Structures are given as structure tokens and as C-alpha cells.
């Protein structure tokens, strides 16, 4: 359902999520992000450029990860959501809880 990959950019883990983050796929992202947090990464940038769909279970994974990072003095930032994913982020208030940027470059400046 989703492909997740990540890379390090000066201490920020840039996580690219591709596909449909529906209820069936959300546990895969949860495992991936949990592993990063357990490895000690405190700055995570979620690049949603290739994410076609997000359900509330996916939002919960992002929220839970964001909360964990805040607890460790870290941060989660989101970038490049498509228009429909952005609509869902707005409807659920996530654009108020997290910084949502139009590009990776802009997002990296927020750490």
C-alpha cells in the first residue's frame, strides 16, 4: 500500500511516503517512524509529495510521532502534501499543529 524511505540531511531524517496511507497501511508507517525515534532521531521531515491518500489512522500515526518527538525536545515537520491531502490536514487541524511547508528546502529551515 505504501512505500516508505528515508535519508539523513544534516541530522534531519527526511521520510518519503508514497502511495495510500489508509487504515490498512498506517501500521507500516507507524513501525517505520517508531524505529527512527527509537534509534534516537529527534528531527523528522515527512515529505508527502507522493502520498495520494491519508485516513485518520495515518493522521494518528503522525500525531503520535509528533508528540513523542516533542517529548524528546525534537520536532516533526510536513512538506509537499498534494491538494487533497492538504485539505484533510486542514480539516483535522494538522496544519495548525505542525508546520506544513511547500518544499523540502523550506521545511529544513524550520528545524
Amino acid at each position, binding site marked *: *500500500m505504501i512505500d516508505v524511505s528515508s535519508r539523513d540531511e544534516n541530522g534531519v531524517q527526511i521520510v518519503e511516503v508514497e502511495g*495510500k496511507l*489508509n*487504515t*490498512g497501511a498506517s501500521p507500516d508507517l507507524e513501525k517505520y517512524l517508531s524505529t527512527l525515534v527509537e534509534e534516537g532521531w529527534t528531527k523528522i521531515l515527512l515529505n508527502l509529495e507522493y502520498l495520494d*491518500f491519508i*485516513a*485518520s*489512522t495515518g*493522521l*494518528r500515526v503522525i*500525531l*503520535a510521532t*509528533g*508528540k513523542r518527538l*516533542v*517529548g524528546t525536545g525534537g520536532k516533526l515537520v510536513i512538506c509537499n502534501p498534494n491538494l*487533497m491531502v492538504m*485539505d*484533510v490536514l486542514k*480539516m*483535522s*487541524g494538522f496544519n*495548525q*499543529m*505542525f508546520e506544513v511547508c511547500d518544499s523540502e528546502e523550506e521545511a529544513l529551515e524550520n528545524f
Partner: protein
Amino acid sequence: MKTSSFPGRYDSLAKVSEFVVNAAKEAGLNSEEVYAVELAVDEACCNIIDHAYGGEGLGELNCTVKVDQGKLTVILSDTGKAFDPKSIPDPKLDVPLEQLKPRGVGLYLMRKLMDDINYETSPNHGNTLTMVKRSQSDN
């Protein structure tokens, strides 16, 4: 009107999604409206599995779609525990991140995304959730 039954498991949701998305396109809904239907149905099915059945593999998800020009009706039924979406308040979204409770967001999205939502429950027929999405271009 078409009806299909799926096992009440998370890995059924892609098939449920395909079933309703095809119907939504047939009804002439635009891509944004199709997305809304897909998301609302994913949320509703998740609630049925989690709350009505209390877990995966404990019952069927029955999905009926009724296609009219510019209007799609989706009827989801189950035989699990009664669960009235109206009884769940909207989540408080204007609180600091640390205090936010993630539950209730799915129902909130369903209410925002669909034009009509109706829930009925009966001892003989189980629970029935009816959701309607109308095309903006026909309004």
C-alpha cells in the same frame, strides 16, 4: 444498486475502497468528491471493525452502492455492537499538540466530507450507516 460483502479485516479495505470509488466515478463525482467518499468509507469501515466488532475477523462488512446521476449513496451494514456516530463529539482540535486526543478525528472527517449521514440499528438487521455524496456541479 450493487451490494458486496467483505471480511471485516483491515486488508479488505482496499477492495471496499475500489468498490465505492468505481461507483463514485460512475455517479459522475469529480476527483475531489471521489476522494471524499473513499476517505469517509475507509473511516466508517475502520469504526465497524474497531468498535462494532471489536477487532478483525469477527464479522462481515456489507457495502451497497446506489448510483444516481451526480449522487452516490453508500450503505454500510454490520452485525456488531451498536455504535452511533452521533454519540461521539467532534475532537477538540484547538489545543496544544501534547493535549490533543486523536480519537474522534475519523468521525469528524466523515461528517465534514459527506453531505448526509444516517445511522440506524435494529436487533434483527444490525447496524446500517447510510452516507450520501452529491456532486457540486449538479447543485
